[in-house]
């Protein structure tokens, strides 16, 4: 199954990760691994960063870093 980048998700939308980022180990370590549910909760006033719900907790993260996480 081909996924789309997590950064394309709209606020309020949730999805399941199909592929963990390959070059950003920390992202995988905090829970961006295949099978986990994620959702974009909030977007900052100037469009970046966003708050992503992962492992049931909200994490602030810049959009550019989410491009490598594929979801479906």
């Amino acid at each position: 199954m081909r996924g789309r980048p997590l950064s394309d998700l709209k606020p309020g939308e949730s999805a399941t990760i199909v592929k963990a980022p390959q070059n950003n180990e920390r992202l995988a370590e905090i829970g961006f691994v295949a099978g986990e549910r994620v959702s974009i909760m909030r977007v900052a006033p100037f469009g970046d960063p966003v708050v992503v719900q992962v492992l049931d907790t909200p994490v602030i993260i810049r959009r550019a870093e989410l491009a490598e996480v594929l979801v479906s």
Partner: protein
Amino acid sequence: MTPRRKRVALAGNPNAGKTTVFNALCGARQKTGNYAGVTVERKLGELKQHPEIEILDLPGTYSLKAKSTDEAITSEVLMGTAAGEEKPDLVLTVLDASNLKRSLYLTLQLKELGIPLVGVLTMTDIAARRGLAVDVPALEKQLGFPVCEVTMATAEQVNELARIITSSTRPPSEGGATRSRVSASEVEERYRVIDAIIRKAVKQSTQPKNSVTSRIDAFLTHRVFGLVAFALIIGGVFFSIYAGARPVMDAIDAGMKALGAFLGGKLEAYPVTASLVSDGVIAGAGSVFVFLPQIMILFFFISVLEETGYLARAAFLMDKLLGWTGLNGRAFIPLLSSFACAIPGILSARVMPTDRARMATILIAPLMSCSARLPVYVLFIGAFIEPRAGALWAAAALFGMHLVGIAVAMPLAWLLNRKILKTGESPFLLELPEYRKPYLPNVVRRVYDAATDFLKRVGTVIFALSIIIWALAYFPHKQTTHDSGISTFAKSAGLDKTDVEALLQKTKLNETETAKKRELENGLRAAYLKDSFLGTFGRAVEPVFRPLGFDWKISVAILAAFPAREVFVSTLGIIFSVTDAKDDPAALGKKLAAEKKSDGKPAYDMLLALSIMIFFALCAQCMSTLATIRRELGSTGWAVAVFIAMTSLAYVISLAVYQVGKKLA
């Protein structure tokens, strides 16, 4: 030889509550907060009533594969690769019940190390609100080591944990080192194990409703309301610091003046000692001491913002403003803590993910307006802006002064990141913690610590420098100065020299004589100051600062403040006290506003006040900060560069403001 102490280390994710557990176990008072990265150094304590057991608090990390300097400290200690240290005998792995999966990731890595583990379960209250219940015996069974709950850190919970610590005696087994390369599949493998543990040990009872935190965040992180709320919060803080402290400050000021007058009267027979006490100690160190209320209010708000978890929201709202400069989002917290003091700010730059990003953060941290600049702002705003524009504008000016440093720091950060250090993009991750009611004892402790630190500074460094400055302003106190002062006065008043001397001795005076005598006394004091070591030196350096609008008195005070900023205020206090007759107990600000030039015009005005404050906002007048930069970067060169860059910036920008302002006026 004394037997080796048992070493117990605390490990866990950022903001999992390690330091709270540490404080409970050791009866210590380390600083805690509600955001990631409060602890950036290892802290050592000993278990209460068990001096043979030492407890090590470590910076939080998500993984043993460190991604920043503070995390490297943790993984080196835990893996036994830290210089001169053996592996700990026992590791307390902090399990955040509201974030259990992520906590277990690090725990599984620790288990692979082969060190005996004890789980410390925290935040079960937050988990319960989300409808999650942790089955402790089931968790123990899955993990294969004891787990102890300490959410509330009650005496009972802490004693139970202490009992487990003291009774565990297993020596560390030689576990395998973690492999240095972890593939994504390996991370996923660990998470599969974790999922299996969670299924057996955690029960989801109810579906969580919209939590209080997310309802507050819907407002506080909203695109529009969030920014309005941020502006209101920061504005409110500055208004409280400015206006709220006034009455207390005035009371302290009046008390100091009364003390000065009282001691001055007692010591009348010993003029040098009397001057030392009232002009040196009270007018010097005392004029800094009156700013105690402002410092306490500032730290009260900092502590409340830290405790509630709002700082992470502020980082979220403001990240884009940092982003264009190439600063990593994590820089927000070190920079924000630099508003209290640059030193903890520089230390907390250890949370930065790369060395270069850390360096850029350290180099601009001293430009954030620290609490030592507060007395200077409040003094000049109170003397020159508030009387004309009112308290609201005064508070706005105080806020504005804090923006000056940021406005200069941002382009500099851009230059450092994009052109000089060429800092690459580095990942930014920050968990959004649950809101928490500020824990009052923590707030009280923070304010108390800040107040005692401030009083210690006033009592030691500033006290000592005040005495030196007083001595320089008092001596040599020559007879020739007195004589020429008398003859100048005699000439201008059309009197004979002997009549002038007689006036000085006379005690019963009519109204005109009283005014004359005061004029004479003030003239003599001014002459003594002008001929003092300080005056001679001041007039020599005055040309350097003249273009900025500074006279010799301001110039001397600026130079005296290079070791520590507050000395500026104490030096002005001394200068204006030695030139004033004792019976004029006006506050320093009033004296500054009343000071006249030889042609009778006011010596200082709003434009000069602005020039002075901008100089202070930008200048590197703090030896401790420079020493900290040198230590943290391991380089004298960078510390010197910071000093030169900031001092030149201060000079050039103050110069521009003063000259442009003069043209416009």
